């Protein structure tokens, strides 16, 4: 049984179909990269998995348990599925420590001391310990995005969804964020990332899915997708990426 199984899901915004009959599976300790042109449905797929968007059709299973549709405890689900956004979305009125401890205290019901201990351990591990008392707007984009990852990790999720987490960053800040993801991949964290960082996707992924028009057009190990894509549109996409020297 697959860890996450997505069966024939569809999602449209009004008349605009974004995801059309998409199916895929994610195994435990997999790092799956979602690549593809803008508007191909990568972000929407991640938002559907964490229930921020309701799907119109199909189903999503985790450990064989259906997590979509009516009656699902969406708050419980989100405890175990973390997501990090392109725009960081830190809470600007709270310090870094406040951001990281809010959900563990209010949702997991940890004591404040326990939550802070857990938060400080994570912040220390990712080189952010000295920023614990800082407010987000006084930090660089790279630091904010690292805090956002720590905030998601503080919930001890089973899987982490990363939605183009380096797209809003200045080029010199990208590597500090990617290093964390690399680190988590080595540790065996199950991750699903929508990304435009092709070189990185190739390096860390166990599987790469090329999305096109709201469905998986081609999937396979990174070597296959980037070096020997089987289907035409994948080839065109990879060629244009190579022409832009982004791989």
């Amino acid at each position, binding site marked *: 049984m697959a860890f996450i199984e997505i069966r024939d899901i569809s999602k449209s915004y009004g008349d605009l179909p974004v995801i059309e009959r998409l199916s895929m599976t994610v195994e435990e300790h997999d790092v799956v990269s979602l690549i593809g042109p803008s508007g191909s449905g990568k972000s929407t797929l991640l938002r559907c998995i964490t229930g921020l968007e309701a799907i119109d059709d199909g189903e999503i299973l985790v450990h064989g348990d259906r997590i979509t549709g009516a009656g699902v405890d969406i708050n419980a689900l989100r405890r175990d599925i973390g997501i990090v956004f392109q725009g960081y979305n830190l809470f600007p009125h709270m310090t870094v420590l406040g951001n990281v401890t809010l959900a563990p205290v209010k*949702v997991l019901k940890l004591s404040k001391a326990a939550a802070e201990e857990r938060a400080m351990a994570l912040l220390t591990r990712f080189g952010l310990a000295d920023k614990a008392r800082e407010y987000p707007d006084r930090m660089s984009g790279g630091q904010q995005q690292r805090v956002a990852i720590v905030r998601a990790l503080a919930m001890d999720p089973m899987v982490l969804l990363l939605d183009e987490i380096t797209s809003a960053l200045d080029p010199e800040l990208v590597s500090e964020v990617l290093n964390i993801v690399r680190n988590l991949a080595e540790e065996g964290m199950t991750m699903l990332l929508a990304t435009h960082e092709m070189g990185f996707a190739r390096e860390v992924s166990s599987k790469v899915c090329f999305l096109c028009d709201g469905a998986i057009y081609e999937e396979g190990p990174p070597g296959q997708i980037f070096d020997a894509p089987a289907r035409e549109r994948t080839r065109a996409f990879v060629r244009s990426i190579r022409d832009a020297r982004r791989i």
Partner: protein
Amino acid sequence: MGANRASSEVADASGSARRLNIGGMPSAPTMLLLTALALAILVEAASLYTIAVMRAALLQGGFSSGFVSAASVLLALISVLIALPLIRAFLGWRDVRRAVARGDVVAARVTGSGARGQGWIVIGYGFAQVLAVLAGQFLLANNQAVTKTFFFVPLMAETFPLVLKAFWINVEIFTVTEILVLIWGLVVALAMLAPGAAGKPLRIIAAAYVDVFRAIPAVLVIYLVGFGVPLTGVPILKDLSLTAFVVVALTLTVGAYVAEIYRAGIQSVHWSQTAAARSLGLSYMQSLRFVILPQGIRQIIPPLLNAFIALQKDTALVSVVGVVDSFNQSMLIATNHYNLSAVTSVAVLFIVITIPQSRFVAKMMQRDRARLQGGGA
């Protein structure tokens, strides 16, 4: 190819084909300075005349002649200050002429700009002085009738304790109302934003309440509640004091505005904040309480304080149902003495409490703007 073209263009530019044209030798701003001079002479004449009339009136009013003369001389000196920029303007004008004679374009531009600036200062301050003279003449008109009607100091001094005591009623009413409105407005705002199909009736009722009470003039609500509820004889309600009725009436009216302010503040928080909060497993209410409201409240403090300032002034409306607030008290005094100076005292009291708050709000908004511009995303 491209490089060749670029370099030939550079050669053209440094050659004789095109020259920078920002005007030749400037002329002295003679017309402007003559206008400024004429205005200054007129204003000064009017000022001195007004000061003379004021002096006569004050002497007649029994003020000591030493004090009156000193005050008149001081005012006259202040009125003459307009000559300073005028003199600077004419000195500048002379420098322009000299620079032009020397053929020094740059110096002529610099001095000309300075002279023109001083000329405009004379005109700007001159007009302000005209307004001051007109105001002074209005106060002195008809043997100082205006002054005696609105600013009769002996009566103001005599009745001030009474007015101040009544003003305390206004303070009481608006303080209690502000506290109630803070709570009531939030309740209504949350009802306006009640989620889902279950929340729909609540949303409709809240929206209807806000629309209705923003449509009815506050004075009508006060009148209806203040006179109407005792007439209905509804148990408990009918036994409340008149002050309690007007507090309820004002809370209903201002609460509608404040609910809108809260709602706007809550909705001004970007949806991505809700997405982040919910994706961490926080419930709707938890997201609202820990993430959305704290950010929304910061945004609404300036409009909230503005609503409070308006409320404070609206407390003068409670006189329609017979609450003896400062306005009502001053009207009684006005009737007894056939003089409005006590009402002026009330106006002064409102000014004294309102202006610091307005300034505070303005400062706060300025700070928020600066932070927004500095903060970027």
